Each structure stands twice: as C-alpha cells, then as structure tokens.
C-alpha cells in the first residue's frame, strides 16, 4: 500500500472550540499565505465541545454587575484550591470578555436582556453573575458559529474523520502526524512545520461520564508516548449532576437558575456542606456532598442500573424560564427519562466530566520538552488537553470555554508566526517514522490475539468508577495501579475482528482504548503519589490540604520503567493561599 503524504504549514489536531479557534486565528494572523490542515476524528462540527451547555465566563459589565477582572481571577484561584498558576489565571480573566464579543461577531445568539445587552447568569464558585450563555446550548452555538466561520477561511482545509495514531518527533522537534482516514481506510502522513494539539479531555476512562464517546484523550496519549511531559493528571473533575442512568450532563446552569439538590428525605442537604453558596458551591464540593449523602443512606436507588442517586429539583422554577434558559434540560429529561422537569424530580449523581490535567505547556500554550526549561519545537496545545494551568485542582464551571477561546487566539497567533519563519518541513525523518507506525498499525489489524478490546475497556472503566471516584482511598489507588498494569499487558494481546478497511470502527475503538488505558495508568499513579486532599483529589487517609509539602504541580513523563513523576512549583503572585470555605 502506498501511503499518502500531505504537506502543510500548520496542522491543527482536533476540531473542537480550541482547535477551530486556533485555526481561524492562525489564518487571520498570517493572511491567506499559510496552508492549514484541521484534522478531526469526527465530522468537524460534531466534536465534544457541542455538549458544553452552561456558558462562558467573562467580565462583560463590571459596573452593572459589581464585578472586576480581579474578582474573576480570585474566584478562579480559590476554585482551583490554589493550584492554578496565577499569571495564567490573570490572562484568562483579562482576555475572556474580548472573546465573548468575538464569538458574538461570529454569530452566536447570546441570550440578551431587554436592552439588547448580553445576559450573564450565576455559576458555581463565581461571586457574581458573569457567565454569558446561549440558552443551555452554549457550546453547540459556538461550534456552529466556528464551523460556519471556518468555511469562509479558504486557507483551512478540513479533514473529517481521520484518527491520528502517532505524533512524530525527530530529536525534540515536531515533524508530522500519522493518521488513518476512516472512510478510505488509508494511512496518511501529515507533514507540517508546526502542530496544535486540541483533542480535548479523557473523561471517558470512567464508565459513568458526562462526555461524548469521543473524549478519549487521544492527543494527550500521543504526546505522552512521544515523550512529552503531562501535568496534574490526578485531577479529574466529577460533575455533580450526571443524569441517571446514562451520565448525560444536566447543566450546572440549572442550579445557576435556582434549582435545588434534595436527598431522599427531600432536604436541601447543601446546607450542611456549603452554607453560603449552597448549590452553587464549586463542583468538587457539591460532588462530595452528594456522595456523602448517599453513603449516609439518604440517597435513592435506580432499579434498572443499580446506581444510587439524589434529586435535582426544578419544580419551583417558572416553566417559561426553563423553556427560555434551560430548554435542553427539558428536552433531555423528556426524551431520555419521560420526566417533566416542571413536575418531576430529576435523578442525578456525580459523573466524570473534565480533566484538569493534560499536556504540560507554558503560559503561551507552547508544549514543554521537560518539567521545566526548554519547550518542544513546533508543538502547541490548547483547550482541555492542555494544562496551562488555569484550573488547578478544580475547574469552575464556564471557565473551560473561555480557556479554549483565549488560548485559541494566543496559540493561533503564535503558530502563524512560527510557520512563517525559516523552518522547513523535514522530509526524511517524518517518512521513516511514519513507515514504522504504518507497520505497527498493520500488525495491529492482522495479528491473531486473544483479548477483546471492549472487555478491557469495560474492566478499566469499572475499576476507575470504583477506586478513583469522588472519594479515594490509598488501598483503592494501589488497586487501580495494579489493575491498569494488568490490563495494559492484556491489551498487548488484543485482536481486531473487523478486517475491513472502510470505516473500521473496531480498529478506531481499539486505538482509543489503548490511549485511554495509557492515561488511566498515569492518572492512578499521579493520584497515589499525591498525599493530600486538594480540589477534586480527595483521599480519605489525608483529608487536609497540605500547602507546605504539596503546593506543586505533578509532572508525569514516560520512561522505560513506567511513569516517572516529578514536581514543579506553582506560580503564586497575587493571592496567598487561604482556607477554602464557601
């Protein structure tokens, strides 16, 4: 088989909000002289960003809302349990308002007040209303605006449904991506001067997850395998309101608009856990509160799935308000559960939702070559797959969309400059590396193994659901590490039953499962190494935050003997750590 080789100036991997924003800004910054490839494993407009519901944070009207960029920064840092790098947080808060306006100019139909101004709603952990929204389909509207916008940019060529299997690096420098075109079944080498990784998170390593099936952390796994460092991988956010039994997200905006959480006795139990913010405390605190209630026997049990849950109560909200601001909540509960949110209580429990950790980048989104010091040549990372880090140990709702937009612009602009520079596409190295990868893929499809990849995936998800959930234990984390090791060695012996070349989803799934398994192992090891509780990482044996010893980022790198863990300091300049009470 002859491999196809495609040459570009820039290749953007991933078509979510971060990826498409970077591509657009790269073209805007460069003029039409650059050739940009946007490579996506799904149809570009179907990336998981469409599922973002609640909104995008940004201080639009400081005087009217009694808000300030500084307050946004403080809320974010406090929400992160002081693990966020504060210069990055300032950058986010400063630039977010501009990006909301930018998306408005691309056509997003923001909800507005009577006077035509963009409406902002309250959100978890935010002191004042500062989350702009388009009903509860904010991510969807942003994605549609971006996709329609990108069709106007002729320099960007979209490759729908190409799954990338390897990030090719030659002596610390990016040279290309190796991919399989799902529709043709052919293997393709994308060569480019520079690359943006924007492949999103890996919340699907858990079985009970809010995210799309496509959130398998491919880009992070590719970087890890290429020897690049990952940061803060132990911090996985559990969204308090994942719908029973599927895990579908019920937006935090429901609570932002006034919904209550109730246990089996009908009590608003958040009183006991966050007296002042109640349901609008940050997600890690609400998720722990729900699990504590369930463990105290004040939960309910779903007959079909066996899952225990508590209730989200919207019955006291005006039905018209639900239609205008939360139409998707109504749509989902009616279609999936035959429930009417105006009359019935909605069964929910915490579900894995967002991964704060990711590829270690500096404040400009450049991927680092090691724990500190030099950056890797020609590689940037944006969005959930990157760890800048603005979210620290716990992300505040609606900060993720602003992160994608803000760093989309920063990275897009920087990469255009890089691609215009004197770099040349490295021809030979990329071809050799790609040929190696081609052999690996061919071997994967043709070998006769004995393990079913789906079986391995289910075992991985069940293990993590049980051992690395909202509350962790030392023994549980140890078990997870051991189990992941076992599953990895079983994965080496998988077989792919589908021998067809056209749209081979069996092969795609096997590759994704391999990626998830790799990351699950890193998550378990980083979690076991952090002997404190901070943000989303809560260990029963170490219930306190320990700033003296653990105020530092975890860096995980691949080595011959497994994951090598080291630590780098957190950048603190404005806000000194204090006790986190809501």
């Amino acid at each position: 088989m002859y491999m196809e080789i495609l040459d570009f100036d820039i290749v953007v991997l991933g078509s979510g909000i971060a990826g498409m924003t970077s591509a657009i800004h790269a073209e805007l910054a460069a003029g039409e002289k650059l050739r940009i490839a946007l490579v996506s494993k799904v149809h570009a407009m179907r990336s998981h960003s469409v599922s973002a519901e609640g909104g995008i944070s940004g201080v639009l009207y400081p005087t009217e809302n009694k808000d300030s960029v500084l307050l946004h920064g403080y809320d974010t840092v406090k929400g992160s349990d002081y693990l966020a790098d504060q210069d990055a947080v300032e950058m986010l808060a400063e630039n977010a308002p501009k990006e909301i306006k930018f998306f408005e100019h691309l056509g997003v139909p923001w909800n507005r007040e009577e006077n035509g101004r963009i409406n902002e709603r309250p959100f978890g952990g935010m002191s004042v209303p500062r989350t702009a929204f388009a009903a509860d389909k904010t991510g969807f509207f942003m994605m549609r605006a971006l996709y329609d916008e990108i069709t106007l940019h002729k320099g960007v060529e979209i490759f729908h449904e190409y799954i990338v299997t390897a990030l090719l690096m030659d002596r610390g420098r990016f040279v290309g991506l190796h991919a399989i075109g799902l529709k043709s079944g052919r293997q393709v080498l994308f060569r480019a001067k520079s690359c943006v990784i924007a492949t999103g998170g890996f919340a699907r390593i858990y079985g009970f997850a809010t995210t799309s099936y496509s959130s398998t952390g491919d880009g992070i796994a590719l970087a890890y395998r290429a020897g690049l460092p990952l940061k803060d991988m132990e911090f996985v956010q559990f969204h308090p309101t994942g719908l029973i039994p599927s895990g579908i997200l019920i937006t935090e905006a429901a609570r932002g608009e006034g919904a209550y959480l109730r246990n089996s006795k009908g009590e608003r139990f958040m009183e006991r856990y966050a007296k002042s913010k109640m349901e609008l405390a940050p997600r890690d605190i609400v998720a722990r509160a729900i699990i504590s209630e369930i463990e105290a026997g004040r939960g309910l049990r779903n007959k079909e799935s066996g899952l225990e849950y508590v209730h989200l109560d919207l019955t006291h909200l005006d039905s018209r308000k639900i239609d205008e601001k939360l139409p998707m909540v109504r749509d989902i509960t009616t279609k999936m559960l035959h429930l009417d949110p105006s009359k019935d209580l909605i069964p929910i429990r915490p579900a894995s939702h967002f991964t704060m950790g990711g590829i270690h980048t500096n404040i400009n989104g450049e991927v680092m070559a090691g724990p500190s010091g030099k950056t890797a040549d020609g590689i940037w990372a944006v969005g959930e797959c990157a760890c800048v880090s603005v979210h620290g140990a716990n992300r505040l709702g609606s900060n993720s969309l602003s992160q994608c937009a803000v760093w989309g612009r920063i990275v897009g602009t920087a990469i255009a400059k890089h691609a215009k520079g004197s770099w040349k596409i490295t021809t030979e190295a990329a071809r050799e590396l790609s040929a190696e990868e081609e052999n690996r893929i061919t071997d994967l499809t043709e070998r006769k193994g004995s393990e079913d990849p789906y079986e391995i995936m289910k075992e991985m998800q069940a293990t993590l659901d049980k051992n690395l959930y909202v509350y962790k234990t030392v023994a549980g984390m140890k078990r997870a590490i051991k189990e992941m090791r076992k599953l990895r060695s079983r994965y080496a012996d998988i077989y792919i039953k589908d021998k067809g070349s056209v749209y081979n989803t069996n092969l795609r799934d096997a590759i994704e499962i391999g990626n998830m398994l790799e990351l699950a192992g890193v998550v378990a090891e980083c979690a076991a190494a952090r002997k404190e509780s901070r943000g989303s990482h809560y260990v029963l044996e170490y219930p306190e935050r320990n700033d003296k010893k653990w105020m530092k980022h975890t860096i995980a790198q691949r080595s011959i003997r497994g994951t090598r863990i080291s630590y780098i300091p957190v950048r603190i300049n404005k806000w000194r750590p204090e006790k986190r009470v809501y």
Partner: protein
Amino acid sequence: MRASRYMLFLYAAMIGTPVLLYIRIFSLAGGMLLLSTILLALAAIGLVVFGILGYMEIYSGRRPEKMPLDIPVHYAPARHEGRFEGEGRSVTLRVARFDTESKMMKEKEYCVRADRLTTVLGALLAIKENDDPTLAMRYSCRMGICGSCGMVINGKPALACETNVFDSISNGKIMVEPMYGHPLTRDLVTDFDDFFEKHVSVNPGLYRKNGAEKYAAKKPYDQSRKEIDKFLPYSYCIMCGLCLDACPVVNANPNFAGPQALSQAYRYHADSRDQMGDKRLFDIDTVDGVWGCEFAGACSKVCPKGVDPAAAIQLLKGELFKKVATDEKEG
C-alpha cells in the same frame, strides 16, 4: 399455547388405555391374554408418569422461551457501559448493513436485552461491544446535540440516541437502516461530503463588510429580543442530515440544495448582524435552490431539533418575491 411433548404423551396414553382395555376384555377367551396385559400395564404407567409431568408443566407457569439458537442474547441497559444485570427483556433488532465489497444491503438480526430507558443507540452499542464489533455506525455525544447518529428506525428518520427502544418497536422488532438519502459508506454509515458542500454553498457564516472590525470585536452588536426571534428558531440545526433523507425532492434530484442548507441560508439572512445583503438570497434564486422545494414538509416533520426548514424556504421565497416587487416598482 404450544403443546409440549409431555402433553402429547399424555393424550396418547388417555386415548390408548380404553382401546387396550377393550382388547383385554374381548380377548379373555383368546390367546392374546399375556400381550394385552403387558400393554395395558405400560399404558397405565405412561398415563400416570406423563400425566404428572404434563400437570407440573402446566401449573408451574414455566414457559421456556423459544429463541433461534444462532442469536446470542446480551444485556443493553441504558447505561450500557456498566454491567449491572438489571431488569429488562429481550428485543430483536434487524439491522440493514451496507456491504462495501459487494455494494449490497444485507440484513442481520441481533437480540439484546433492553430496559425501559434503553435507546436504539444503546442497543446498537451493546451489539457492537458484545456481539459483533464489525458493525459500523457513527455516534458521539449520545444526547442529541452532535448530530452523528441519524438513521432510519422502523421507517422513520431519527437520531438513534434519542429514540427509545420500546417507543419504536413494532411487531416485536426494530428495523434499523442507514439514511438512503445520502450515499452509503458502510453498514449504517453514510457519506456526508455532498451534504457539507451544500451547506457551504449557501454562504453560511456571519458576513460583515468590514472584516477587520468583525474580528477585532471591540463592541458587541446589540440585538433586541425581536431581532433574535427572527433567526433563533433556525439556528438549532445540528447538521444530522435527517431532513435530507426525508426530502422527496433531494431523493429525486440530487442537485437540489436541500432543506438543511436553505434553512441555514435563511438563518444568516434573517440575522440583523449580517451584512451580506442580497447576494446570499440571489445565489439560491434558482431551480435547484429555493424554487426546487415543493413544500412536502417532510423535512420539518423529521427534524429532531424542531427547526422548520420548510417554513424557512417559504420565507426565502417570500423575500425573493418582495425583491422582485420592489425592483419592478423602482424600475
């Protein structure tokens, strides 16, 4: 109810015994004595044994379900990732699969266990993960917003993730087919290249005369509630392609721009922030544009997001009529 084999023995014994008794009485004088006695004894034992077995089967309420042996049964709970062996009953899915080698459709039956919350996508994924990994389909968000899983379920174009298994069952079966309004790729997967091209052809995207001002985004473009309401209903399109599958015109004339693209042309035309003016409108003022629409309305009926493409196209026609009228007045 089908008679079991025990019951057949029971009936045979009940009829056989009087016959043997009759022979026994009339053969007292003859030489058949020994043989008829043995037969009578056997029949009496049979009557007792099979009678008891048959009785037990009728009253124990045990009805062994008959399944074709070649179809394995798997459990597909709504939360398909878990393996909780909860409640549920078995459902038969008949999947029409497009074979890429032979370019033929092949139908295959699968049995899955489903509960009251199982969706068609959940059932298909259970088949894929437990039974037949070669089954190709497109899916992602499973919450009706990414637009991946459009297919034809019991004759109706729908999103598999939003369709409950028991709501769509008919004659105890669910028929799942790919969307025939798009070129077939494999199994349930269809090709969207033409579809995306049509979408791009109508100039979707917010156009501003001053591009630099648009991207600098210094000031928001304020909009009133009334201005938003003009385009908002048409902005919910998730590009799933179901309307194209339902449209009788596209299926007869592949060059017709189709309800999805045209509704999106209207979405941007009606947005007060857009400044493309008449260009977008005149580009679709053709027989393969708005005038191709015969107002069958099937597109609006199948749209899972409540977009009304049929109405959008009629509004576009109205806009064009208005232009002609003003042109004549001025000319």
